[in-house]
């Protein structure tokens, strides 16, 4: 059974509907990407799957029905969300950002976890007392990922990590993310516009167009798909 199973998801803002019934699955430890252009509904999909907005349809996580639950209940179930624009808590230091990421945890291993993230992202360790808002975009993206992992999620929702980052920096972030997921065993649902990057990272992909799933399949197959190449890869 899938870790995350979404059936007929419909969501929007007020009278404006954005998602018109989408289905998607993420297995335990799987890396999945949702590709789509601006306005296709990528961010809305993630917001629905982390409980930030109301949605119709069915959201099953680990066999548990999540519809109507609060964001903190989604988090407690094991879904962490890195929002678009990284969601840096700018007035806190790097270390404080990580500590607040562990807000829901009651165990005594928070400090040890923070040290582990400093090892994974040495640049965060060098800047632990620095205000998070004064770091570069790439550093903030790494911090956002580490902060989300502080809740020890089983599924990470990641919203356009490449946004506003130089290609080399993006590549580094994605590289680190891959080793982190291998280490923690967490699954990732990534939404991206950068198809080349995303298809290289994920094992499976969905293509979202105007609020519906237009295509889905193995990332390698989609990379070779004429339609995807024309629309998202540009060659």
């Amino acid at each position: 059974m899938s870790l995350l199973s979404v059936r007929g998801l419909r969501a929007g803002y007020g009278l404006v509907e954005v998602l018109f019934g989408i289905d998607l699955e993420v297995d335990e430890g799987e890396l999945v990407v949702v590709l789509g252009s601006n306005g296709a509904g990528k961010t809305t999909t993630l917001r629905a799957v982390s409980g930030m907005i109301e949605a119709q349809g069915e959201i099953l996580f680990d066999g548990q029905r999540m519809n109507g639950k609060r964001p903190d209940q989604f988090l407690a179930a094991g879904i962490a969300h890195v929002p678009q624009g990284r969601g840096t808590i700018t007035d806190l230091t790097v270390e404080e950002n990580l500590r607040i990421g562990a807000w829901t945890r009651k165990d005594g291993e928070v400090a040890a976890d923070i040290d582990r993230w400093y090892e994974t992202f040495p640049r965060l360790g060098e800047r632990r007392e620095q205000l998070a808002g004064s770091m570069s975009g790439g550093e903030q993206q790494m911090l956002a990922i580490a902060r989300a992992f502080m809740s020890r999620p089983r599924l990470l929702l990641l919203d356009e990590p490449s946004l506003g980052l130089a290609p080399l920096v993006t590549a580094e972030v994605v590289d680190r993310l891959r080793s982190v997921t291998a280490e923690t065993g967490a699954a990732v649902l990534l939404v991206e516009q950068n198809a080349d990057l995303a298809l290289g990272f994920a094992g499976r992909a969905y293509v979202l167009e105007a609020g519906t799933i237009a295509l889905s399949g193995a990332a390698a197959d989609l990379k070779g798909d004429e339609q995807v190449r024309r629309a998202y890869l540009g060659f």
Partner: protein
Amino acid sequence: MNNFLQVLVVGIGDGAVYAMLGLGLVVIYRSTGLLNFAQGELAMFSTFITWTIWEVGVPLPLAVLGGMVGGFLVGALLHQVAVRPLGDPHLRPLATVIVTIGLFLAVNGAAQLIWGTLDKDFPKLFGEGQITLGGVAIAWQKIGAVLVLALMVLGFWFLFQRTKIGLAMRAVASNSESSALVGVPVPRLLMLGWGLAAAVGTVAGVFTAPGLGLGSNLMQLTLIFGFAAITLGGFDSPLGAVVGGMVVGIMTSVLPQYLPIFSKMRLAPAFLLILLVLLFRPQGLFGRKQVERV
């Protein structure tokens, strides 16, 4: 010289009270990023609660604690019924600020309904005594105000810098959406902030009431001085509230001695100060300048 020292001492005592009210404003600002115009009225209301408890025969220090608890409950309740329904204050700042102005009027009216419009005599927490040092008389009440202020600053420093709740309050102020995403119960923390601010305000009111008489307009001048204090010190800085409060207190006490025009216009120095700070150093002395990279 003695005259100068005398007005200086009075100014420091007044400044301590402005700083207390400023601290309450800073607490709300640090959790919501907004100014709370009802802060002074909440302080006035909980000072009336203190007075009521004292009047039935409870010793004043205990009555003050009771007033703080009452103030906390009133502040938290007002947040729940009047502020929270608007949704996230970070997304609707104007609506929230307007509601605090509405609360200003409502709480003032409620106090008049409950306690009438005649000013009440309010006793001094530290008594009527004074000590004389080198010819300068220092009232115990003023010394007490400074000591209580120091305790409050220590308490807030500990809360914000050393506790998980304080960290969460700062996180909510900085980025409420990200805080919610890591599971921080944002509305509950905002409620806590309102309660704390009102509890702190109680103490400011208790120190203001003996001099002015306890009426529904008790804190209106003090609120202006409190605003001036945190403008100077920086809206997000507890230390700034203290330094700012002291400067404003000393200014309003010393200036009229030498420039008689200010004895008729007690508020003028405060407004002048707000204007100058906003023109030349908008983040205040200790406030954080907004530096953000994206």
